[in-house]
């Protein structure tokens, strides 16, 4: 059966090897770095709806988007949520695997990347007009480079702090041709963040330990991290790991810092307040004695997307249950920009 195709294939193999070697030697094959033809405009990202548009992204690359994208691939869960929130969701043709799809329609978008890696082949086959990737290792850098080498416009976004979430949102909006919606969404979120800040600023700040994992060690939040600033906004004095890169929490340090409240960001992974109270050495902590160990919805606190307001309200409810914030009870699913849109 196989006998017939073999000989031609053999010849082909040799020819291919020869071609590959000679070609590689003679001509420099596709340049590794994209060549931005247009120099960066003085104000890097003007929030206009006009195309073509050139945006300077998190990776420092000038990304040129020639026309309003009809097909978009989203490689971060937050970008997927943002695209749906600014009503560009129907154009998302591929997304990174997400354990908590939001909104529910996002679940129907085909998966082109997982935690294990990005399926470049699938993305190329979708012929997207725009790819939104995560910076700082969110999307493997190598994958970003290869997509760019294949002439796909890749916009890299990364939110190191809360203000970045809003600017990312606006940039994604400009890139997707929904600049106005994204600006309204960001403005609405800014207003809600300001409201929370105003409500919590003068309160006593309890020492709060936010647990992000318990296997194999106890993990908390790093200094100056995104979650740490969320906790501060929610009126807490966050207990951090003591380093801006290390998320593992020394138990000695934790006991010494004596948290008044423990928030279980890992509650979805089977960690319960009873289990935490029973950990050897933890009984002495104020939070354990006062039974102030509270599960929390981790995704909306840590995902830099439209539901961050919901996450912040959740934190306030867990840290300062006595505080009422106007608008906190609004249905979270409808992260609607209409509130301030008029």
């Amino acid at each position: 059966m196989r006998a017939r195709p073999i000989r031609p294939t053999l010849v082909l193999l040799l020819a291919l090897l020869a071609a590959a070697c000679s070609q590689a030697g003679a001509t420099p094959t596709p340049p590794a770095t994209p060549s931005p033809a247009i120099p960066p405009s003085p104000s890097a990202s003007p929030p206009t709806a006009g195309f073509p548009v050139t945006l300077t992204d998190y990776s420092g690359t000038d990304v040129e988007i020639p026309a309003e994208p009809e097909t978009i691939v989203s490689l971060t869960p937050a970008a997927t949520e943002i695209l749906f929130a600014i009503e560009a969701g129907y154009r998302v043709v591929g997304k990174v695997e997400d354990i908590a799809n939001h909104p529910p329609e996002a679940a129907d978008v085909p998966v082109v990347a997982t935690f294990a890696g990005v399926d470049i082949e699938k993305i190329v086959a979708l012929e997207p007009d725009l790819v939104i990737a995560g910076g700082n290792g969110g999307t493997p850098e190598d994958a970003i480079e290869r997509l760019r080498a294949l002439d796909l416009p890749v916009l890299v976004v990364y939110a190191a702090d809360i203000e970045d979430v809003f600017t990312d949102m606006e940039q994604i909006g400009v890139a997707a041709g929904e600049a106005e919606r994204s600006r309204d969404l960001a403005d609405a979120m800014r207003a809600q963040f300001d409201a929370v800040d105003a409500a919590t600023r003068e309160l006593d700040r309890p020492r709060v330990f936010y647990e992000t994992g318990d296997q194999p060690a106890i993990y908390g939040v790093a200094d100056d991290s995104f979650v740490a600033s969320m906790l501060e906004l929610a009126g807490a004095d966050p207990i951090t790991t003591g380093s801006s890169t290390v998320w593992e929490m020394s138990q000695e340090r934790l006991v010494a810092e004596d948290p008044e409240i423990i928030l279980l960001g890992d509650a979805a992974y089977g960690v319960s307040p009873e289990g935490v109270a029973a950990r050897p050495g933890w009984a002495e902590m104020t939070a354990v004695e006062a039974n102030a160990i509270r599960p929390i919805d981790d995704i909306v606190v840590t995902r830099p997307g439209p539901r961050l307001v919901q996450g912040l309200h959740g934190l306030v409810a867990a840290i300062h249950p006595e505080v009422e914030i106007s608008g906190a009870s609004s249905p979270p699913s409808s992260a609607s920009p209409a509130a301030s849109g008029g």
Partner: protein
Amino acid sequence: MASRGQVVAPASSFPSAGLIRRRPIVLGLAGLAALAVALAAGVGFGSVAVAPGETLGILTSRVLGLDVTRTWSAATEAIVWDLRLPRVLTAMVVGVGLAVAGATFQGLLRNPLADPYVLGTASGAALGAAIAVLIPVRIVFLEFGLLHGFAFLGALGSVVAVYRLSRIGGMAPLTSLLLTGYALGSLMAAGLAMAMHLSGAALRQIFTYLLGSFDAASWGRLAGAAPLVLVGVLLVMSRARALNGLLLGEETAAHLGVDVRRERVTLLALGSLITAAAVAVSGLIGFVGLVVPHVVRLLVGPNARLVVPLSALFGAGLMTFADLAARMLGEIPVGVVTAVIGAPFFLVLLRRSRTGYEL
């Protein structure tokens, strides 16, 4: 062991003399055929379905410059030409390199457990890659990033260090080489653990490198690694006589007219260069370099003139099939596949070998 050093394996262990003489040729042809099938399958299959006719059309128009009517999209052409073909060819080149480097180190060190990574190459490359990940500077030269460069230098640097540290009076005794390699490897593994601890979000990059993958293959990277590997392999083949001599022991080799000291350094350098080039593009892929040379020796005997080229062929075939399987199973680590395919096969051969087996 009777078979040692004989050009052809002893007749007593095989059914007929005629078959033995023909066996390497038959194996060579079978290997080439398997490789061709692997190439066709590797380019033909992937996570996106491409019609065989389109694949063939793209290849003929690109390779032979024929003016084939385009029935495919630019995306399909990119998938076949820019993603799959360099990936398959890189897997082949790395398979060739690791198998030949393994055969070289096993013969050179007269140790059946030797593999391309035995003298600290793996830990050196891994440490280099991890350090590169920690450096927040992005340099790309001919599609090679800092990670590839540091991995390459780490692999070579560790072998140089091992060789220099193990030298006693101009010669590096085998035991001393192996133990120094082990000691230095452990030290670098500690460095790697430290780098991983410090890496934060970049941990995944280090992890991907440690598991090995051909996902990131490109023409540019293939063009960088292939000449080093293939020239290195040809040079090792040209030294098959010395490799045969060294297998008999230093004294015997010297009596046979082999310049033991020079040949050993040369082969060590070649094996290390091949390994470094391979791990720079693919990460650390285990098992191929250890098992393929053994399988070949079990089949054709210990003569390096046969073992080296057949190892190259089988290494390429195994790696290409392993990578294809890894892709089809959803980008699982290719090292897992090489082990799962290779280990049982090796065990069966080992048990069936009637004469017992030694290097």
